[in-house]
């Protein structure tokens, strides 16, 4: 009897969530709307979580190579402009209706009509989508597209036509709560600002889903999210572990730390249109004075890779072998002297020929302590070679307003230099070099420094229509060499992707190179 009472008392005291071993609790950083393709918010982990509920035609594997997902067979015409895809049989929506080529056709036509920043641009090169029979879908492209498989087919989630057809405006789509998808999970519960609860789709076409239930609590504070992991109140965290916590977590019982190359970047962005900074020699001297190896050691405690001057990470399949930035303070001083930047009035700051002092404002985001400390190191380093830097820190939207007004490169820029960075997906596609560096503001959509080089433009225009991987690699290598020469940005480092989880709760996480374990492949094996 007393044992029974004891058991009842103990079971009441235990936090209820611990009782379900088949539930995985993965902390998110922020609210992700209703988790459908028009309401999720962040590129990472929002897109990754959304694709637990919806499926694109292809899906990036652990090496970021797109593999067929909803698709069984792919045929590309010799001119690269006609893609004929055959869908797998017996794929069903969560409501039981079959997923057919009509849904695929509808999705791309919908994306073209109802604007979304990620889906709509992928339809720009589409001449049309046909659905000759329920299993076959044909994409007709205006011109061959190097990024079609990764950026379009492995990215755009397929929408159920019968659900989305009546939702015709952007505002309606943004307010639409339906989450009927085809993915391995269904959305069961959405608690505003608190958590999401997803349950496994028992009829998933690709095979059994490895977890019965996924709970996604929203934890705003990074430190608290890792405390919760340590205390066993969550099992995994979409955030990457900050370097100072790595040693502690590696020693902690029951917690496993996974680590690999990170494809996000931390860069020093120059405004190439600035009257002084348009001089590549000055940019080279600035870059040379900054000791990036020291930065990696001091700021990242070694958990980062020193930047490559061609932007792409050495672990990227498109990295130009042997590209390395060589610089030193002595070389920078020599370069500045040679280019005529001298301290004529002996105030410690050099001046240009016309007397303008080499005094710059360096912007950085308030929410990122590592970048603020990086800015401090840059200021100290540049002072040593006679270049003055004022650091200005502000919240994200205020900084973006100066560096990238309205997220539209065509609207110009109002800054000198900024410690900035790009997220991992920018690294995993070769065409990112075009987005980053093409001089036409419509094509170089993230060329926020206003960099121009006609030779690079030509190579870029060639790259976007090249489908053969070997030729892609060659073109990308040539572009990286030009970028390394001109230095429109100086890549400081690539922080490693370090993530932690509780082994006992769930140990089958799959680590996507450069990005982390928040991927569909952590919960389901690729379809055979």
């Amino acid at each position, binding site marked *: 009897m007393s044992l029974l009472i004891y058991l009842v008392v103990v079971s009441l005291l235990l*936090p*209820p*969530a611990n009782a379900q071993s088949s*539930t995985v*609790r993965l902390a998110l950083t922020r*609210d992700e*709307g209703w988790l459908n393709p028009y*309401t999720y*918010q962040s*590129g990472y982990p929002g897109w990754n979580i959304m694709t637990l509920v919806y499926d694109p035609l292809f899906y990036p594997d652990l090496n970021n190579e797109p593999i067929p997902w909803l698709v069984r067979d792919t045929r590309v015409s010799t001119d690269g402009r006609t893609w004929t895809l055959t869908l797998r049989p017996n794929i069903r929506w969560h409501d039981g209706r079959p997923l057919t080529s009509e849904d695929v056709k509808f999705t791309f036509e919908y994306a073209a009509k109802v*604007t*979304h*920043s*990620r889906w*709509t*641009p992928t339809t*720009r090169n589409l001449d049309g989508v046909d659905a000759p029979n329920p299993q076959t879908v044909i994409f007709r492209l205006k011109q061959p597209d190097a990024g079609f498989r990764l950026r379009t087919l492995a990215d755009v989630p397929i929408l159920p036509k019968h659900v989305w057809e009546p939702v015709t405006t*952007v*505002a309606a789509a*943004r*307010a*639409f709560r339906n989450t009927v998808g085809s993915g391995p999970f269904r959305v069961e*519960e959405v*608690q*505003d*600002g*608190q*958590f999401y*609860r997803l349950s496994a789709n028992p009829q998933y076409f690709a095979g059994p889903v490895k977890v019965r239930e996924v*709970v*996604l*609590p929203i*934890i*705003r*504070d990074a*430190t*608290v*999210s890792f*405390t*919760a992991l*340590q*205390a066993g*109140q969550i099992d995994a965290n979409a955030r990457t572990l900050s370097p100072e916590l790595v040693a502690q977590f590696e020693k902690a019982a029951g917690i496993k730390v996974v680590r690999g190359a990170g494809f996000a970047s931390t860069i020093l962005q120059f405004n190439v249109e600035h009257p002084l900074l348009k001089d590549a020699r000055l940019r080279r001297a600035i870059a040379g004075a900054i000791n990036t190896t020291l930065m990696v050691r001091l700021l990242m405690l070694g958990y980062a890779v020193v930047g490559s001057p061609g932007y792409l990470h050495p672990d990227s399949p498109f990295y130009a072998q042997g590209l390395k930035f060589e610089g030193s303070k002595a070389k920078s001083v020599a370069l500045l002297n040679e280019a005529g930047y001298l301290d004529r009035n002996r105030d410690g700051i050099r001046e240009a020929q016309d007397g303008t002092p080499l005094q710059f404002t360096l912007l950085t985001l308030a929410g990122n302590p590592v970048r603020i400390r990086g800015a401090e190191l840059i200021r100290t380093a540049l002072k040593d070679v006679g270049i003055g830097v004022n650091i200005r820190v502000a*919240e*994200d*939207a*205020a900084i*973006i*307003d*100066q560096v*990238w007004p*309205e*997220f*539209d*490169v*065509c609207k110009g820029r109002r800054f000198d230099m900024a410690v900035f960075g790009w*997220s991992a997906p920018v690294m995993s596609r070769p065409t990112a070099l075009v*987005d980053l560096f093409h001089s036409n503001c*419509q094509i170089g959509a*993230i060329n926020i420094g206003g960099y121009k080089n006609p030779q690079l433009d030509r190579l870029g225009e060639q790259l976007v229509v090249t489908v053969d991987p070997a030729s892609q690699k060659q073109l990308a290598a040539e572009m990286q060499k030009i970028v390394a020469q001109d230095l429109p940005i100086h890549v400081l480092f690539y922080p490693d992707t370090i993530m932690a989880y509780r082994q006992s709760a769930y140990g089958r996480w799959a680590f996507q190179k450069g990005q982390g374990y928040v991927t569909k492949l952590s919960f389901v094996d690729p379809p055979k």
Partner: protein
Amino acid sequence: MLWRFFAAKGVQYALVLLFAVTLNFALPRMMPGSPLVFLAGEDVGFMTEAQRAQLYSAFGLDRPVWRQYAIYLGNLARGDLGHSFQQGRPVVEIILSRLRWTVLLVGISLLLATLIGIAWGTAAAWRRGRPLDLASLGGAMLLESTPSFWLAMIFIAVFAAGRGWFPVFGAMTPGAGLSGPAWIFDVAWHLVLPLATLTLVTIPGMFLIMRYSLLTVLGEQYISTARSKGVAERRIMFRHAMRNALLPVSTVFMLNLGYIVSGATVIETVFSYPGLGRLLFEAVLARDYPVLQGTFFIVTVSVILANIAADLVYPLIDPRVRHAR
């Protein structure tokens, strides 16, 4: 004469409301930065001019500012606070879902802090200059200058992560699907640490006001008279001094009552508590104009209501105001 008083007050409050509502509209739009990324997602850079235009017009941001203002006022009059840019949901729905958590946390904390502050302040004033008073004053100063996020972190480290007595984050166990008494217990269990933190940092203010106010009263002549009449110390304290000394505390309490709905941004953020303070903070970062306007509106209205309540209640507790009118 009473109706004239209320008519004057009514006009006054209506003007304040209009002014505040206008400010609520203007301030978010004066901040640098664009809500575009939250309307369309992170890849806005890749959109064409036409696609951007479609988005701006879908959310009415392409209209001249005065038009937007007129529409905003019209909608407000109909009780429509619009849809969140960020979440797509109706602002009213978001605010209501956050309001209960904030009222629970901040409301209880204000009550507790006021009661404790009054008791503590009285005890200290009674023992003025003695060790208890000096220690209390030092302790209150220390607590007053403690950053709330730091205190919250310490509590989390010691009582949540360290001892495991309380949860680290949230207002309830995510995905547990509890109901009835188990749910109430779960909510209370999650409330302990944020409530303790918020109460602790609110107490010193109440303590200092109460102590100072009581000391002022104790220096009045009628207290000396009472003493010379031979009235008992305890009776002087509770009958003569404390009732008068409570007036400033009740004013502060009333004013704070209005600010309950503005939440406790820092503590709600650290504990991932789904209150209005955190909502407001996130809306600022996202340039979510409708949510900002809606939250500010709720705060404005409740501050005004608290003032009206104070106007009505004050004559009841302070006869001098009643006679002056």
